[in-house]
């Protein structure tokens, strides 16, 4: 009986990777199908029962479509290129130094803060009546009234690009840090430097080629995300120069249901745009590789130094802008009176918080429940996959990694629209299950990325020792591996929770307006212009994931306060 149960459990564990892939690739596929069919006129619920190219024709005729496509490509590729350049420039200047490790500790919590919170803070900072001009006025600008220029139209999408760079650079930096830990980066750098190459030159010529392959998928994810981002675009793009993703949202929300076909065609186009952007990126990679190879072989010892130093300065500038944005937002939430051009409020109060706490309570609770549930489910699946991998001794290849990245590379707009059509048809929109599952799609890959390396790096001899003591693999997992991985597990949970808190589009689509989170509320309020109210929501939205990170980084130290061997590294 017991043996039967054990073997059933083992079978379940073996099936875990396949089950996990099905659970989160199935919906992506189904969602894409749900967008492709209506894009060609097939959506029986709305009277479309024959295939046609009409939606595409309508979309092509829609005023401003090509401008929006151009805007998406430009802003996305520029943001990705700048983020990558800053990341590698900073690494070239600082890898192996104390500053490098310190930046890792600064960036990890910044990564936890949702995109929308940054975008809102940035809007506060850069708006004509924002904090930046307040501190400069009237002594530098000479004006006592806010200038009569608007944040929009911003015809080149510079605000959008800035916000994306602030958010994506920490992500790429942390991914690069992980990649560096897997190659003999320090030794390689040391050898090149003893051959007379400057630090930056040595890094670009010897370390970058070692790690680029490993950070390529995260870069693709950044490219795809940046060309299709929705919440940041809503907050920072002018209404006259929308991105494609904004047009799709506009169509999907149009009271005229005929626009649903247009939205579906737009979703397909968005997928095409993301793939095209990745294609352009790959083209760029080839060119740079060819030029770079010639540069590497040329023997120059000092090139790249200026680039690395500028990138380092820019990274510090960006981190400061990011932090100042968040602080500015927090100040607004406590401001009673803050007249232009005062640099700080002249009266402070808790009124905003007491007044809006009632309204914020429900979305905050939803955020917490959905985030914890999605992270917990994802953790169970990821641990099952990793344990199954460990017991079978088979490491998944590059292809499996691509599968994992699918929900990060296929634009959210593209498959969530279709997924919503499916959810509506089975009547699940607006349920807890639908919302948690929609978040799970994005929580799972990040949680996997966070946990896989520490799990695989755990010295296998601990496990061998335990097994040779006659202990079953299941018991080894619960008693040895899991406790030894406490820190990694908690950090992974915090990552998953932070991803969930930040999700905008999945919440809009799966929540169906019935379930709202702090992020959807913050974005919705941002349209209203009441900075105190927006401040409250944005601060709450930023605080939850930060609290998760602080808890995850402090808790293991407390649990294992009497175990010196558990303090570092594990």
């Amino acid at each position: 009986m017991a043996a039967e149960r054990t073997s059933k459990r083992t079978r379940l564990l073996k099936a875990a990777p396949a089950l996990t892939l099905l659970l989160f690739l199935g919906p992506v596929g189904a969602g894409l199908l749900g967008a492709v069919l209506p894009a060609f006129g097939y959506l029986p619920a709305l009277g479309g029962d024959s295939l046609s190219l009409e939606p595409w024709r309508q979309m092509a005729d829609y005023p401003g479509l090509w401008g929006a496509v151009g805007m998406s490509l430009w802003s996305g590729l520029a943001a990705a290129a700048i983020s990558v350049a800053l990341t590698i420039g900073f690494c070239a200047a600082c890898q192996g130094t104390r500053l490098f490790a310190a930046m890792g500790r600064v960036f990890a919590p910044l990564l936890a803060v949702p995109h929308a919170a940054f975008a809102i803070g940035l809007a506060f900072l850069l708006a004509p009546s924002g904090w930046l001009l307040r501190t400069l006025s009237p002594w530098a600008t000479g004006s006592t009234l806010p200038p009569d220029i608007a944040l929009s139209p911003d015809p080149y999408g510079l605000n959008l690009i800035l916000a994306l760079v602030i958010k994506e650079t920490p992500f790429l930096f942390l991914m690069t840090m992980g990649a560096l830990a897997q190659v003999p980066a320090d030794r390689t750098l040391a050898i090149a430097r003893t051959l007379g190459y400057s630090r930056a030159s040595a890094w670009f010529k010897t370390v970058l080629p070692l790690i680029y392959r490993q950070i390529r998928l995260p870069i693709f994810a950044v490219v795809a995300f940046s060309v299709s981002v929705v919440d940041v675009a809503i907050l920072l793009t002018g209404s006259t120069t929308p991105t494609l993703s904004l047009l799709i949202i506009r169509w999907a929300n149009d009271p005229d249901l005929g626009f649903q076909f247009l939205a579906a065609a737009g979703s397909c186009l968005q997928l095409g745009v993301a793939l095209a952007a990745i294609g352009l990126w790959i083209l760029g990679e080839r060119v740079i590789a060819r030029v770079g190879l010639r540069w590497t072989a040329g023997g120059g010892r000092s090139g790249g130094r200026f680039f690395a130093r500028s990138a380092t300065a820019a990274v510090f500038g960006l981190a400061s802008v990011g932090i100042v944005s968040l602080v500015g937002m927090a100040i607004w939430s406590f401001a009673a009176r803050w007249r232009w051009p005062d640099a700080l409020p002249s009266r402070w109060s808790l009124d905003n918080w007491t007044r809006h706490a009632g309204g914020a309570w429900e979305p905050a609770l939803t955020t917490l429940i959905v985030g914890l549930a999605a992270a917990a489910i994802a953790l169970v699946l990821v641990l099952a996959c990793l344990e199954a991998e460990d017991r079978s001794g088979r490491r998944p290849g590059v292809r499996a990694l691509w599968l994992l990245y699918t929900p990060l590379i296929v634009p959210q707009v593209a498959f969530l629209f279709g997924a919503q059509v499916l959810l509506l048809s089975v009547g699940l929109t607006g349920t807890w299950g639908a919302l948690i599952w929609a978040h799970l799609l994005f929580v799972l890959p990040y949680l996997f990325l966070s946990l896989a390396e520490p799990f695989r790096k755990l010295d296998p001899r601990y496990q061998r020792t335990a097994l040779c003591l006659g202990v079953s693999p299941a018991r080894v997992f619960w008693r040895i591996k899991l406790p030894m991985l406490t820190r990694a597990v908690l950090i992974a949970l915090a990552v998953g929770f932070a991803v969930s808190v930040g999700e905008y589009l999945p919440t809009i689509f799966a929540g169906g307006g019935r379930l709202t989170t702090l992020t959807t509320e913050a974005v919705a309020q941002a349209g209203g212009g009441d900075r105190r109210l927006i401040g409250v929501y944005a601060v709450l939205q930023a605080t939850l994931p930060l609290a998760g990170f602080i808890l995850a980084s402090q808790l293991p130290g407390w649990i294992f306060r009497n175990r010196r061997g558990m303090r570092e590294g594990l």
Partner: protein
Amino acid sequence: MAEPLILDDVGLSVAGRALFTPLTLTVAPAETVTLMGPSGSGKSTLLSHLCGTLPPAFTAHGRSHLGTRALDGLAPEARRVGILFQDDLLFPHLSVGQNLAFGLPAGLDKADRARRVEEALIDAQLEGFGARDPATLSGGQRARVACLRTLMADPQALLLDEPFSKLDAALRDQFRRFVFDHARARRLPVLLVTHDPNDAEATGGRVIELRPPNQT
């Protein structure tokens, strides 16, 4: 009942290439056989194979037995083969006492477990150290705990994968005597892998050189 560890034509290969000339060997109860050979000759991998944790990149052939019990195909936890590595590998999240208790078989009552742990602590000259963090012990103390933890599981054979190499000379001698005395007292067949001729000498037993297959 002590029984011999029997290797019958046991060989290992990786990617179709044999690591060493297949080995046929009987290690009698209370006997220690030393395996030596150059790095990469497959000594440690052979021990992994015997305790059932051979990495999947390797394939093994031949048969191994403990007395009449065939080991091949058994899960590591069912083999009752203990192993000690170069590092003591005490579980860092458990106390010294919990580490020792982890080796005890399930089904003992609480008082019995506590008594056996206490005895082991005395045996390791660590009386009263049960609640201590293993990270606060000296290298020699940790090594003794690791050895006793292995013996707590009541293994029928002991595999030693260079367990003395990280200790300094004086400690090494002491710990060697500790391990071999315990193994002999329990009449365990012992297979020792080492690079150090002194280790081999200290066992006073046979030394077998693992050779690449083309050198025979």
